[in-house]
């Protein structure tokens, strides 16, 4: 063990040790919250699907951030809060609606501010004759962590797996239903 010639040198050695210790701990890396964030987003997505069973627009819309955009099939992108509400309200108004979805994949950024999910959905609604028709497809969502730590969806997109012609996606199906009704009137 070195013998210090003076108190100054000993102090210097101590300070060096302290400063090295302090500096090596200084740039403390942010804690890695990716697993917890992914779990939180997956839970929010599952809660959202459960909330959709109420068919209440407000229950659905609670999962969107204020600046969320909705990219549904067969209609234009909804970027304003009013357009988003209208798009969701129209979807939930489909007769005999039942819709649910399951997350396939979820991943969060290292910084814990953004995450994404994708998965599959199943949607049943009645045609003009009251017969249940089922659509299924895939969706992708982008989520942003809010100031209170909760996660909200900022981009929501889905599209049907079914070929467009024989079994159109939900919205188109709605239009087909209307057409069928009109044809029925003609027959009468």
């Amino acid at each position, binding site marked *: 063990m070195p013998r210090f010639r003076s108190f100054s040198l000993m102090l210097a050695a101590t300070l060096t040790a302290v400063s090295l210790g302090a500096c090596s701990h200084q740039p403390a890396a942010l804690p890695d919250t990716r697993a917890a964030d992914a779990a939180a987003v997956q839970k929010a997505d599952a809660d959202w699907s459960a909330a959709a069973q109420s068919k209440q627009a407000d229950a659905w819309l609670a999962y969107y951030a204020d600046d969320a955009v909705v990219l549904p099939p067969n209609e234009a992108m909804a970027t304003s809060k009013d357009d988003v509400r209208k798009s969701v309200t129209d979807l939930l108004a489909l007769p005999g609606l039942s819709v649910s979805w399951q997350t396939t994949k979820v991943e969060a950024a290292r910084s814990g501010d953004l995450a994404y999910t994708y998965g599959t959905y199943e949607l049943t609604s009645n045609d003009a004759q009251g017969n249940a028709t089922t659509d299924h497809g895939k969706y992708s969502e982008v989520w942003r962590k809010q100031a209170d730590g909760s996660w909200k969806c900022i981009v929501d997109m889905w599209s049907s797996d079914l070929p*467009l012609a024989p079994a159109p996606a939900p919205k188109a199906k709605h239009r087909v239903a209307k057409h069928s009704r009109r044809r029925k009137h003609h027959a009468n």
Partner: protein
Amino acid sequence: MRTNRSPLRVVAAGFAVALIAGCSQAPGPPMDTRKADEAAITAAGVALAQAAEAKDLDTCMSFYVDDPVLFVPGAPAVIGKDAVRQAFAGFLGVRALKLETSGLMIDVAQSGDLAFERGSYANTITDAKGKTTTETGKLALVWKKQADGSWKIAADTNASDK
């Protein structure tokens, strides 16, 4: 006024300065690279569209991660690089292709490892018989930064307007 020149105090003061200077130069939180990331993603998107218009399948696929997913309307999810390549080959197998995008917005995570892009597209396709049709829709892309710093698409998801 008496100036204190005690060696002890000089050394202590010197180390205090060194400590502050040393620590302030130590790497702080990771640099915010979001602006540069956004520019890199925009450039990658343009290069991908150019490669598709040139029907250069290999270059197109170089913009996808090894395990990508592709969602197109009217077909089940396309999962994995081979399947995406096959779908892309079909997409490129037309007489001519013109790909346009508009209203693209990019969100990059602070950590610069993930980014999300969304916007509108207009694909004008001239088929084998010379018939030209334009399909418009919406796109949402998940981009992931690679070990070499490049950005690649992990999820390419689309929904047509009609």
